[in-house]
């Protein structure tokens, strides 16, 4: 056995070639096409303030989508995120009624998110229940608590300083939410693509049994991902509550499906094992651009969701159709 007579190269394809041929490149082309179409379709589109407003269509969902992407890559899912948003918002609203400061409100929002995530995580990793069932259950449970607390009423009267998270601007047209989106995108991108933890996420999503046999602490990694997803739902709840200025129990209703759509459109395999954060970021922009562009054209909301659905199926099916046609 001489190690030198048969040399195995590290790579056959440079990382750059691989990137050019990737799903993300296709998505980016779609995003540019939509942007160009919108620019021609409406004279109001290419306006810095309008574009800035458009980012609110996706920033909060994208924050959750980053964590959800990791969770789905690891082979699990959390459908209770929108209900966590509602429960966290309700808790913040209740605290605001007794005069809590903005800082305390934020802590409450994030803590509720963490607790909900821990609850989901324990049920899945300790009890061994399937996450899709657990989180459909907690989806009803968490929002149900909000309905019990609020009924037909709403919480308002948030302190002035709390407005900044959803309505504030850091510089010119750059909102706090957009900055938070960018920072979180970077953080999750680094976590997934550059750390040992991220590698474990991919390994577990591809084969949880072999990952366990390889000495990974599979349960612990999954639990952390549920915690992170709950935390991000808490962050999104802070932003959304601040932006709306009030809490109704229906806040963020149906958001979980838009989050999952964003993740899948971003190229994450719904069965786990593959996907990237850059893909999810581009998918977030695509969904924001489509919603905003159609809004400028006075397309009603129900039609928008049809367009988003068609876009999702189209983008997912295109490569498959292409392969069939070629093959």
């Amino acid at each position, binding site marked *: 056995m001489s190690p030198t007579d*048969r040399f*195995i190269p590290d790579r056959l394809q440079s990382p750059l070639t691989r990137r050019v041929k990737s799903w993300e490149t296709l998505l980016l082309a779609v995003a540019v096409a939509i942007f160009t179409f919108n620019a021609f379709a409406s004279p109001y589109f290419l306006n810095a303030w309008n574009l800035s407003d458009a980012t609110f269509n996706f920033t909060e969902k994208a924050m959750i989508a980053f964590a959800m992407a990791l969770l789905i890559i690891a082979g699990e899912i959390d459908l209770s995120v929108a209900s966590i948003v509602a429960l966290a918002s309700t808790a913040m609203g209740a605290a605001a009624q007794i005069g809590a400061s903005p800082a305390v409100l934020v802590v409450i929002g994030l803590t509720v998110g963490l607790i909900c995530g821990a609850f989901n995580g324990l049920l899945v990793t300790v009890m061994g229940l399937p996450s899709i069932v657990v989180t459909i259950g907690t989806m009803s449970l968490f929002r149900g608590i909000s309905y019990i607390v609020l009924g037909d009423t709403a919480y308002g009267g948030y302190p002035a300083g709390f407005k900044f998270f959803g309505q504030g601007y850091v510089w010119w047209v750059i909102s706090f939410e957009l900055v938070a989106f960018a920072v979180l995108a970077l953080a999750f991108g680094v976590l997934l693509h550059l750390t040992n933890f991220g590698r474990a996420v*991919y390994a577990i999503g*591809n084969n949880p049994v072999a990952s366990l046999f390889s*000495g990974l602490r599979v349960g612990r990694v999954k639990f952390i991902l549920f915690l992170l997803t709950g935390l991000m739902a808490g962050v999104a709840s802070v932003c959304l509550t601040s932006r709306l200025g009030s809490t109704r129990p229906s806040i963020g209703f149906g958001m979980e499906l838009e989050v999952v759509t964003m993740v899948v459109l971003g190229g994450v395999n719904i069965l786990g094992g593959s996907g990237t954060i850059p893909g999810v970021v581009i998918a977030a922009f695509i969904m924001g651009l489509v919603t905003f562009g159609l809004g400028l054209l006075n397309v009603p909301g129900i039609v928008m969701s049809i367009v988003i659905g068609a876009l999702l199926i189209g983008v997912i099916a295109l490569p498959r159709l292409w392969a069939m046609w070629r093959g």
Partner: protein
Amino acid sequence: MQPQPKAAAQSAILSLDAVTKEFPGVRALSEVSLTLYPGQVTALIGENGAGKSTVVKILTGIYQPDGGRILVEGKPVTLANAQAAAAHGITAIHQETVLFDELSVAENIFLGHAPRGRFGLIDTKAMVAQARDILTEIEAPIDPTTRLRDLSIASKHLVAIARALSIDARVVIMDEPTAALSHKEINELYDLVEKLKAQGKAILFISHKFDEIFRIADRYAVFRDGQFVGDGAIQDVTQGELVQMMVGRAVDQIFPKRSPRVGDEVLKVVGYDHPTEFADINFTLRRGEILGFYGLIGAGRSEVMQALYGITKPGKGAVRIDGQVRVIRSPADAVAHGIVYVPEDRGRQGAITALPIYQNVTLPSLHRTSRNGFLRLAHEFALARDYTARLDLRAASLETAVGNLSGGNQQKVVIAKWLATQPKVIILDEPTKGIDIGSKAAVHEFMAELAAQGLAVIMVSSEIPEVLGMSDRVIVMRQGRIVAELGKDEMTPETLVRRAAGIGETE
């Protein structure tokens, strides 16, 4: 369902004539012959890998032979699929019965050939009545309307047998039917076999247990390495002769020559017990030693290893590693203490086939290639290149997905993964099962090299030549217990088979 008259013993009901079956790289059957007579039980005997299961699959239409003929009552037939086999009256009862838990007993018995009523709908009443007749005939106290899931394993076997009778089977294949049964249930099964014999059915009985072969078989046929070795009447043969036929071969594989330098004790297992899988497991392992674990499938070898590795929890018992008592609750703990495990099921447990080679190799070693939790790809590639080169891995690049490699090269990736963790003890579970001869030799050579470097190796193997060729010491397990520990000079194929099968020493 009329009992057939007992035919003359000479007229074969089913025979294989020079049947050959090849798989990529392996010749599973090489011109084998097998003859079954009505009213007789023929025991098919052979080591694991001798080709018994392949014969069953050919007879039931799952595999097609690459050469030779299948004769039913002297006429050549083609068994293109399971239906064709059933049409010729051939049916099999497997180790794990292939039945449907959610259906009723009657539906299971008549699935695919239920009596039809008007409009082609299933005539449930007739089906239940016929099922009851068959169950009565075999004296099985089972209500045909019960759902199968509510039955015990033994009762499920009875249902499988009833199903076999419902298609008017002339040939019944029983593939280790007693493996999952209790003592009482086994006796009931023997009675049933006698009944089937009386009805003139030909029975092919596959078993590892010599006591039952001598109890119920009329004839025997021995296979070895996919070749027919011999057959005859059971009263003309002794256990010793059968064992000789099973194992008596020239060892054709070349194993690396070793001069083991056995060092200090590295692992000591004391009193490992598991409620169902194994009991009273005690052994020690020394540096530089290759310890073989031999036994039949289901003897509990893998279960012991997986308990040692933290996958399953033993009820009681303790482990000492380098003299320190260690608690291993998870594979992560085991790896941290220097114990690693190469599982038998490579695709499911060993490798993450969708990920590239280098990521598979570095997965348990990331803490060494990374800095502060951040990946360093250059270090990963270096580590992966180092260990895969030592194993003579063949691949297009280190970014190739492991799933695209041959079985032998996949195994090399799994072994490289563990060596990169610099373990103290490496457990290899059937390390060369299903891999080509060339890779086999590479794995053997490497095991020898590891032992020479002072690693302690545990090798679980069902291949006698491998056990004999590689081990310094062998532990034989049978029914969850250690039944023998043999030194280099005590190891012979005969002793291994005898101990594993529980054949008395005195014979």
